[in-house]
């Protein structure tokens, strides 16, 4: 079959919302785009373990400690499903990790912010997992089968994380003055970075159009960001917290909240490596990987010995 014909069949499948599977023909650019997006997502899951892992040993009750461990473990699991989905496109996990460590591959910038108090565990669950859900629910219908299926599992767990994070905030907001202050401070620090999670404005988003055509993306960055703001503001009101945006107000006409301008300079700075924890996060990942080299070598050597014995 000629490439044109293959491409035509591929486009028909996309139009009819028929899932593309690993063995199907696909345009090289589609494959590359998926690898970039899925690996970036996988990296975000495992780098995202670090800011929350920072508070596990200090969790204020045994119940919270267990929940925090389970949550961060879920994120590791998400990383695992997503690396596996990526491998169906013919790349190896080790090569993807090498790109993460060299800085070639990106991950969600939100994880370059520090976790400074226990309330950050609440704010991350509520806002960061909340924003992740907005981004990810449409991906359950992504055109590439393994990705869509991984996202179904991921989304179920993310919404649990979101509720759990909100519940931490609620407990703090019903607590002592110091706890309320902790909660407000966390919201102040995480609000804007959470809005940045949806990426640049539609006007500046270079991948949106092609990704929408291929059914990898379903809504634009600005649409998702608006949806997140609309859902989250009433939740902040229930908590009795103040969202740190003086321009925030309900727009009756649009039926949406208006909100202030994002500090795009900060956004692009964090993306390009100047966030408060960029170096620390990548160093931690590299160290885990490098320190683990002898363990992986030993496991391989042992598996080989076993395989030889079986043959003999």
């Amino acid at each position, binding site marked *: 079959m000629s490439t044109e014909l293959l491409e035509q069949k591929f486009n028909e499948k996309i139009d009819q919302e028929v899932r593309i599977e690993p063995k199907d023909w696909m345009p090289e650019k589609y494959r590359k785009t998926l690898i970039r997006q899925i690996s970036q997502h996988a990296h975000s899951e*495992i780098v995202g*373990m*670090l800011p929350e*892992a920072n508070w*596990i*040993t*200090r*969790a*204020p*009750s*045994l*119940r*919270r*400690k*267990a929940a925090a*461990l*389970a949550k*961060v*473990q879920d994120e*590791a*699991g998400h*990383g*695992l499903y997503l*690396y596996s989905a990526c491998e169906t496109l013919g790349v190896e996990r080790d090569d993807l990790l090498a790109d993460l460590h060299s800085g070639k591959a990106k991950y969600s910038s939100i994880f370059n912010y520090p976790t400074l108090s*226990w309330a950050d565990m609440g704010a991350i669950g509520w806002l960061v997992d909340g924003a992740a859900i907005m981004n990810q629910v449409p991906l359950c219908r992504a055109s590439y089968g393994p990705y869509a299926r991984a996202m179904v599992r991921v989304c179920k767990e993310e919404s649990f994380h979101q509720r759990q994070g909100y519940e931490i905030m609620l*407990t*703090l907001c*019903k*607590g*002592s003055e*110091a*706890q309320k202050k902790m909660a407000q401070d966390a919201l102040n620090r995480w609000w804007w970075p959470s809005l940045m999670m949806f990426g640049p404005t539609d006007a500046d988003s270079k991948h949106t159009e092609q990704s929408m055509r291929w059914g990898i993306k379903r809504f634009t960055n600005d649409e998702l960001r608006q949806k997140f703001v609309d859902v989250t503001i009433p939740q902040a009101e229930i908590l009795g917290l103040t969202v740190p945006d003086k321009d925030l107000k309900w727009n009756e006409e649009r039926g949406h909240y208006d909100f202030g301008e994002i500090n795009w300079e900060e956004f692009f700075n964090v993306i390009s490596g100047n966030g408060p924890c960029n170096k620390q996060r990548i160093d*931690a990942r590299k*160290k*885990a*990987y490098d*320190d*683990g*080299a*002898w*363990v*992986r*070598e*030993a*496991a391989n*050597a*042992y598996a080989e*010995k076993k395989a030889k014995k079986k043959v003999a």
Partner: protein
Amino acid sequence: MTDQNKFDYILQQADNCLILGQRLAEWCGHGPILEQDIALTNISLDLIGQARLFYQYAAEIQGEEKTEDDLAYLRDAWGFKNVLLVEQPNGDFGFTIMRQFLYDTFSCYFYEALMSSSDERLASIAAKSHKETLYHMKWSADWVIRLGDGTVESHNRVQQALNELWSYKDEIVIETSADSDALAAGYGVSLAELKEKRDAKITAVLEEATLSIPEGTYSHKGGKEGVHSEHLGYILADLQFLQRAYPGNEW
């Protein structure tokens, strides 16, 4: 307090679970392989779960409307009864594996025996924990073997860990008065019987791992009586920080 001895006896194991669970939690996000990061967290989670069941029961025995968190967060180091083994720092992955193996080979047989405790509550906690611990022991033993019989480097590292931890392995099977009273009262476990099974298992696995068994017979002790290493103070500073800094708050 309705039964001081039972309370002490339960705390010994509860504290082992909590402190080792806390140590393993330090690995979270930093494991050598993603799958093993998950396994370490999983074991940590099981151990914290076991600790909670024991603390809840201990708090009931204590009366005074105490909770699991009072016991975990508001005792100072001298009140903790865990063995020194579990408070040792993680070291490299090989050290963590060896520490885990030397603990799992105890806890597995401990729970097995505790399932026939005359105390139904302890027997049921033991039954649940035993299932989990069987899996932990399989995991740590498999890794001891894999690292011992893997590469020269892994062999040397895990041998070194074994040498360093050898003098910490027996405190857990040396009887305290809480242990002997518990045995006499019918709800405790015979550590002498347990030690025999445990030692046989340790020997079998170390042999398969091609590791040489250290000759030393000296055992560090004190943990079960509340006399700890310097490490425990730092573990508690971390663990208890929020409860100490903001006393009396709900979290």
